[in-house]
């Protein structure tokens, strides 16, 4: 059995430069030790290629941009957004 079936996770979507840095467009993180959006950012920064994710990054939870202290729970869809460049 996959551990993801027994261990609640948070799916983190990565975009643009961040997806290039980590080489994937999402990662599934076990919820253990993750209380806030900021915790999720820190965890992703610790992954291979994640060191350069940081200044200027925005965080969205369930499609809304949120402050880093926002609580997260298992099943939330988190996204790390590099500096926006639309328009």
């Amino acid at each position, binding site marked *: 059995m996959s551990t993801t079936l027994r261990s609640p996770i948070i799916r983190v979507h990565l975009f643009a430069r961040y997806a290039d840095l980590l080489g994937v467009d999402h990662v599934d993180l076990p919820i253990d030790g993750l209380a806030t959006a900021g915790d999720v950012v820190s965890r992703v920064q610790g992954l291979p290629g994640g060191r350069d994710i940081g200044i200027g*990054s925005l965080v969205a939870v369930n499609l809304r941009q949120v402050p880093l202290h926002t609580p997260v729970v298992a099943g939330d869809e988190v996204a790390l957004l590099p*500096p926006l460049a*639309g328009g």
Partner: protein
Amino acid sequence: MGFLSHDALNPEGLMAEVSAPERGGTVTFVGLVRNHHGGRQVRSLTYSAYEPMAESVCAEILAEAESRWPVRIALRHRLGALEIGEVAVAIAVAGDHRDEAFEACRYLIEELKRRVPIWKRETYADGSEAWVDPTQPGTATRESGIEEPSR
């Protein structure tokens, strides 16, 4: 829904969506792909987005503008590969008078650039490519990165 488009944009069609006999003040903003950025010659670019959030934020910004000014609005942003001169973003605003149309249009493009999760990868004349980061010095966009929502 439907603010993002992988197909060519049609600003005239957008204006037709919001025009009405009583709306005598209309403003259209059309953003085109520029052939230079930060002193480099741009050959083409590709837009990508966090599509569900981008659609949601566009709807939110449009609703904000329509509640603040007595106007009707149509807005589209292009995704995918674009050549120089192609329409990247188009906003059509129609009000009874020009003041509200100008103000709403300016609000829409500024909030779009600040809040909608869209990214741009440029290809330069020498064949190199880079993600555009408006928070880096020397780039053309004046908005700086923010770590917390400002509202």
